[in-house]
């Protein structure tokens, strides 16, 4: 047991492993996509897992690093999914080259809405912010149900299957890279300072309002990107698939893996995806077991598996040096 622990610690300290893993992962994805190495179900689950990583990391920016409680992430997914699906299905069908711009449009759509929501609502914090995100989620869902040219309650069908394993992998890596660099920038320090104590941060000269709005906008951008990827993976979307249950799934991932930790988010998304697939045969009981896990987690381990800790792979060199000096 002690040997395994020591091995893990040594492995975590080898920073060159991360680029190697990246190259290996990308090669694996390309090979798996072009050959019949994996069956289509396994590929589907792996892609879903990568989309979940994007969702989990982006929500962690608001719920973990910023310390707010947003339940509206599924709403941003819906915006991204619908915007991109409209582009690839209705406006420019049969041009798969437009998929990457379509993902970006989906993300931007979510980011613009997220920006205005944050602008209006960051006067309040805590419970009231949670309520506003909840209202936002409900408004997006019922607005989509009432717009007939996006299919109304029936939804959009016949979306081309464009989300491949390499694209999902690359997007997940870009998301991780952007959010990791944001967190360890000046902006990221401000975000963490707000979580610890907003009034004190304000007194120290942190522009709290701007930092909060930026964090929320970035988070909603990647929520939209994940929605776009999901729409082109499952090829059918309707307003009902972006409801509070979807938001809860993302929350379970974030709090299972651990708030304020990128490694935790990845871990949470991976564990959640496998758990959720393993429980699929139980039908609606799945959505009894998953929230139950969340409740038990909150009671017995409120910070999740990684909880505010980080793998040294993701830390900047300077931070790592400080940490060694302390210990």
């Amino acid at each position, binding site marked *: 047991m002690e040997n395994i622990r020591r091995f893990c610690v040594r492995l975590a300290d080898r920073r060159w492993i991360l680029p190697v893993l990246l190259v290996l992962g990308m090669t694996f994805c390309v090979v798996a996509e072009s050959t019949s190495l994996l069956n289509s179900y396994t590929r589907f689950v792996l892609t879903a897992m990568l989309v979940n990583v994007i969702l989990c990391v982006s929500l962690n920016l608001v*719920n973990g690093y910023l*310390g707010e*409680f947003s*339940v509206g992430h599924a709403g941003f997914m819906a915006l991204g999914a619908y915007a991109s699906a409209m582009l690839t299905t209705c406006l420019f069908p049969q041009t798969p080259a437009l998929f990457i711009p379509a993902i970006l449009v989906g993300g931007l759509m979510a980011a613009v809405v997220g920006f205005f929501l944050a602008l*209006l*609502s960051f*006067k*309040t914090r*805590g*419970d*009231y912010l*949670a*309520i*506003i995100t*909840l*209202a*936002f989620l*409900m*408004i997006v869902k*019922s*607005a989509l*149900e*009432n717009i007939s040219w996006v299919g109304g309650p029936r939804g959009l069908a016949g979306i081309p299957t464009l989300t491949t394993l390499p694209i999902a992998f690359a997007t997940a890596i870009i998301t991780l890279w952007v959010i990791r660099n944001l967190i360890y920038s000046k902006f990221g320090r401000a975000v963490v300072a707000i979580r610890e*104590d907003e*009034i*004190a941060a304000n*007194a120290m000269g942190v522009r709290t309002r701007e930092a909060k709005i930026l964090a929320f906008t970035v988070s909603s951008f990647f929520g939209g990107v994940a929605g776009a990827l999901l729409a082109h993976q499952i090829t059918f979307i309707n307003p009902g698939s972006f409801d*509070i*249950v979807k938001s*809860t799934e993302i*929350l379970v991932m974030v*709090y299972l893996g651990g708030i304020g930790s990128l490694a935790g988010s990845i871990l949470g998304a991976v564990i959640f995806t496998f758990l959720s697939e393993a429980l699929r045969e139980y*039908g*609606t*009981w799945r*959505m*009894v077991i*998953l*929230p*139950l896990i*969340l*409740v038990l987690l*909150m*009671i017995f381990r*409120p910070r999740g598996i990684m909880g505010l800790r980080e793998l040294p792979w993701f830390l900047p060199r300077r931070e790592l040096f400080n940490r060694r000096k302390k210990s």
Partner: protein
Amino acid sequence: MAYFAQQAVNAISLGFLYALIALGYTMVYGVLTMINFAHGDLFMLGAFICLLLVTFSPIALPFPILLVLVMLIIGGLGGLIERLAYRPLRDAPRVSAVITALGCGLVISNTTLSISPYSRAMPEVFNDQYFNVFGVGISTLQMLIIGVSLALMIGLDALIQKSRFGMALRAVAFDARSAPLMGISVNRIISLTFLIGTGLGGAAGMLYGMAFPVISASMGVLVGWKAFIAAVIGGIGNIRGAVLGGFILGTVEIFSVATLPSTYRDLISYSLLLVILIFKPYGILGRAPNIKV
């Protein structure tokens, strides 16, 4: 004019139902400063418990006994949830408690959904009759809803303003850390608050099930969370605000359905919430908390 008066009657009876559910949200928030997201699902369960009691009881239970039974069962369940899930988290960060509440609500609603996947028809509890008062139709049921809700609300107000329990409850809501120094058992007060609040929600569930006799597991989200909007609009934590919010929401909903396609109802209710929160971030009657470092 008669049409308008008719809609006004409908708005009042819906408003009373929303207010009754909103009271549970707001009482818990007032004492614990925590949103009990499971409340809407307990409301839904109230309708299902009533259905079970009516279907399986060997004798036809009269309405008052049925109401008391439903309130006791749902209140007991609410107290149990508080004891098992919320009490261990009382000193944890507030977000943990909110997440737990959300999880508990989903557990309740999805368990109900797994057991009863389809909507159920509520059997008639008593013979419903229509009366014509100055050209406005009002049913026995609507009068019953208004009467029972009014009685429960007046009872609750008297309990909180006049009784020793009410005084202790207000003390805990005012300052939960100093209240035990005055000899108040905070745990008991919080348990009782949950019992009463969720009991009222259960009663509302039963009345709602009788008024709109198709009940399903999604009722907690569709209707229960609407009542939550009512509580927030009025200023959550404020009991009179909950009643005011219930009436505002009931009126807005009935008149929006009367003039627009009914699919716009949710859109309008939640937009109303958003607009009110943007301009009055703590609700109409709520006060901004005093935050210190």
